[in-house]
């Protein structure tokens, strides 16, 4: 991440100088900073709503129940998570919300899952294998209903806006399988071994 971030900024500034785009760059960075805060603040309401509901679901035993019935699928993906831990239930809730195309609600449930995974993580500032697997599945996308894409196609006058659904589901399945394979191979590489943290109180 250090390398990529440095690359984005240094390459950006260098090319802005060469292309004479310093003014655009300045404006873009100011807008991006402002936009980030708006995005984060925009998440707070829906976040609170789902964290509240998930607390109810937990106290009612629903989260553990979900974890238990889906154990056969989740066990090989997340071997380090105890089998009836609420983390599994929260991840399932996030996957389901993603599949249903629930947008920010899916994000809120995903963050709940991250909180549960961090509770089990011995190295608080370093990603655990379970977190990496969870996020690889998440970033590979799990859409069943690409609502935005269909809306844009319809408004551009497509004869059949929904004709891409089948292909999208197929492609997204391929990328999810690749994501899981990649994450399981990469986690074994020495380059990604968990290093001891200098600063334990983050």
């Amino acid at each position: 991440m250090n390398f990529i971030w440095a690359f984005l900024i240094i390459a950006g500034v260098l090319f802005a100088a060469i292309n004479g785009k310093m003014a655009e760059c300045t404006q873009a960075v100011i807008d991006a900073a402002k936009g980030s805060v708006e995005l984060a603040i925009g998440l707070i309401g829906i976040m609170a709503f789902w964290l509240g509901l998930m607390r109810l679901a937990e106290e009612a035993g629903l989260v553990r129940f979900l974890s238990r019935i889906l154990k056969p699928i989740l066990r090989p993906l997340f071997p380090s998570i105890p089998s009836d831990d609420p983390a599994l239930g929260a991840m399932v809730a996030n996957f389901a919300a993603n599949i249903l195309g629930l947008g920010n609600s899916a994000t809120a449930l995903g963050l709940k899952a991250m909180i549960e995974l961090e509770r089990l993580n011995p190295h608080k500032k370093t990603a655990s294998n379970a977190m990496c697997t969870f996020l690889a599945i998440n970033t590979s996308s799990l859409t069943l209903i690409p609502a935005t894409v269909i809306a844009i196609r319809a408004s551009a006058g497509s004869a059949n806006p929904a004709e891409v659904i089948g292909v999208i589901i197929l492609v997204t399945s391929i990328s999810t399988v690749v994501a899981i394979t990649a994450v399981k191979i990469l986690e074994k590489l020495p380059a990604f071994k968990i290093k001891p943290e200098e600063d334990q109180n983050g």
Partner: protein
Amino acid sequence: MADILTGFLQTISDWAIPILAAGIVMLALSRRVKIYEAFVEGAKEGFNVGVRIIPYLVAILCGIAFFRASGALDLLTTLIAPITNFLGMPGEALPMALVRPLSGSGALGIMSDIINTHGPDSYIGRVVSTMMGSTETTFYVLAVYFGSVGVSKVRHALWAGLIADVAGLLSAVWICSLVF
């Protein structure tokens, strides 16, 4: 046929949250959970999570803004065009493929542009629709999810996400050329 399917899926999407909310509340009531107290107790964390994300999101979105606004991304596009051409990706789809993991709204803009220029039912229009629908904004997801728990060493999560993006973007091209 596809319309009925979309309509059905859309209905599930519309019903999911209200039904879940009512279902969870009823289940919790039947288990004698103090529902109001429990909800408020859980919801309290929402604000902290939102605020905790901010620095991570500012870092990554500002980095990406520099990279895009400076024209560095355009240069990268020109540089890797021969490789992606060789792999069968149409030239017009390449900017879309490069922006997709970096910025969701940026990719949406490029997709709309291409669809309006080439038509939604052209080959390239279908390819970018598939790209948009079948991949995620990897950098945004990683910043938000890891940011929410204060994890800054992301290990192999980024590479796994990017490998999955490449797989998704390329199979979008290949499968579209087989199907359409």
